[in-house]
């Protein structure tokens, strides 16, 4: 039973990891950009929530209602004002610019907020739990995070598959020139993709901040998790991303059960195993890794 509990906890955390990965996946899918500052935007969202909570004294979930639109706007401006100029044949440019951005964000946060750890407090969510049967109890927090993850991923899938904007995203990713011929303003589309990606990141960031203590330097580790989830699940498939998240979460939970300091390492090793034996991931749609 202990093992089932461990696996379930890991799977629920996997929902959060899938959420981390969704934003990364969207930007990569539409623009072939891997945003190396992705993890730092997750942390930035948590800190924005801190600011909002301090300013108007609300709980983190209400703060999210402010942070998510703010991050949407930041994402739009980031793409339109900066990242659009890095697009082209040279892969170095978006890579190195987002790398620079990562360092800048991390250190600006250090300057403004210091290196002290924080946590977004939401006591009733953190401590409540749901009883499932007589030997399994799951925390309300992890369950909520998982449900939110599934809902958000479902919403993005719906957007991509059934809406005009989603078609425009896919068409632009396929063939930018022809998409322009039919009215798609690619500069705007790219910016919308990043805006949505960062809005999703902000949801992940706030939920993460409620769940874990954070400080300005933990961004890169989240980037690595997001990346691992995308590779395990398969590039270009959002449900694959959910599966990838669950796998990573479970791997980390099992590692931690073995020895608490083994959690991250266990996740990395599973990632390397997937890379070795099935580099295209679980549910691949695109093959150029």
């Amino acid at each position: 039973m202990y093992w089932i509990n461990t696996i379930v906890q890991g799977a629920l955390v996997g929902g959060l990891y899938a959420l981390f990965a969704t934003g990364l996946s969207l930007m990569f899918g539409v623009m072939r950009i891997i945003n190396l500052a992705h993890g730092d935007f997750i942390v930035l969202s948590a800190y924005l929530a801190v600011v909002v909570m301090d300013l108007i004294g609300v709980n983190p979930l209400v703060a999210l209602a402010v942070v998510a639109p703010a991050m949407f706007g930041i994402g739009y401006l980031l793409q339109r004002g900066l990242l659009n100029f890095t697009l082209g044949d040279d892969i170095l440019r978006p890579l190195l610019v987002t790398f620079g951005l990562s360092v800048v964000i991390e250190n600006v946060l250090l300057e403004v907020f210091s290196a002290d750890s924080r946590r977004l407090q939401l006591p009733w969510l953190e401590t409540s739990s749901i009883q499932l049967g007589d030997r399994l109890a799951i925390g309300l927090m992890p369950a909520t995070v998982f449900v939110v993850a599934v809902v958000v991923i479902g919403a993005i899938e719906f957007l991509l598959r059934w809406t005009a904007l989603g078609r425009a995203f896919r068409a632009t990713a396929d063939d930018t020139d022809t998409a322009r011929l039919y009215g798609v303003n690619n500069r705007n589309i790219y910016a919308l993709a990043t805006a949505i990606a960062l809005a999703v990141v902000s949801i992940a960031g706030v939920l993460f901040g409620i769940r874990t203590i954070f400080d300005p330097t933990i961004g890169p580790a989240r980037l690595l998790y997001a990346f691992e989830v995308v590779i395990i699940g398969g590039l270009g498939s959002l449900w694959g991303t959910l599966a990838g998240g669950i796998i990573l979460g479970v791997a980390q939970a099992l590692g931690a059960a073995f020895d608490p300091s083994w959690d991250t390492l266990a996740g990395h090793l599973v990632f390397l195993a997937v890379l070795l034996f099935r580099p295209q991931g679980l549910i691949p749609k695109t093959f150029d890794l």
Partner: protein
Amino acid sequence: MTTVSYQIERSTRASRAGFAFMLVAVLVLLSVPAWAGRADMRLLIEVSYYLALAQAWNLMAGYAGLVSVGQQAFVGLGCYGFIVATAFLQIPPLVAIPLTGIVVAILAVPAAFLAFRLRGANFAIGTWVLAEVLRLIFTLIKTFGAGTGMSLPISVVRDIAESRTVRELVLYYVSVGLGIGTVILIFFWLRSRQGLALTAIRDSQSAAGSIGINQQRTKLAVYVIAALIAGLVGSLVVLEKLRITPGAAFSVTDWSADVIFIVIIGGIGSIEGPIIGTLVFFVLRFLLADYGAWYLITLGTLAIIVMLKAPRGIWGLIGDTFNIHLFPVQRRVRL
């Protein structure tokens, strides 16, 4: 049909002048212990190994298209490899340095096997993950002191030389030798046929492939050489600091971020670029030493601006404006 006679020219007047200048610089560097203080020597040691790392990273990214954010894996392996060689295997330190380098280079092959399954940005993050795996593993190994690391045993330290002055002298010359040696090695490589292949890959991967250049082998060679250099730097880091922790050995900030910024700002894709970048880096560090995080904020912002406005860095701007090549790796046909 008449054949046109031609000559291949390698150097220009500017490059001959630059060469003379650099010869002078090298001689000055070699003479430093005679007139400079300990602190200055330490600084130059650091400059040397950052220069070596920068040249190596530039070779990978600027010529072979391999953007690695995981060189710290090999620096760290070099650190611990040196400790294993000297403290556990009782190998003399001066032999241990090159030996560690070679072992790290060999370990780079299976690493490449994994990492090369990814391309572009994914490759970059993949190398980062590999480095993290190593860092975490070493944090768990009790023999090496786990998270708190370990010191180089006194016996090993004494093995290098009895007196501290001589030790520092040895460390200085080995480091400077590594820095200069890397530049020379890369210079001659780029001048050679393999170097031409590399430049072709840099300019156009598909075109290079179509004329038969074996890119996978070339990329592997570059990756392994870069790992070798990183491994050597690792040994020197332990020699200098006399103690190591996994966090420091496998630090992404020290061995990747700083190096990447050096190459971006100085100029990717040329030998002169990383040299300039290293100088700029240390000047900035000196100027902004008291400002904590602002130092990295400045570096990062500068890197972003350079990448957007002047993608070939400071040297790109100078070289393009004045059409100078200090290191004559190009060939000109003179009819």
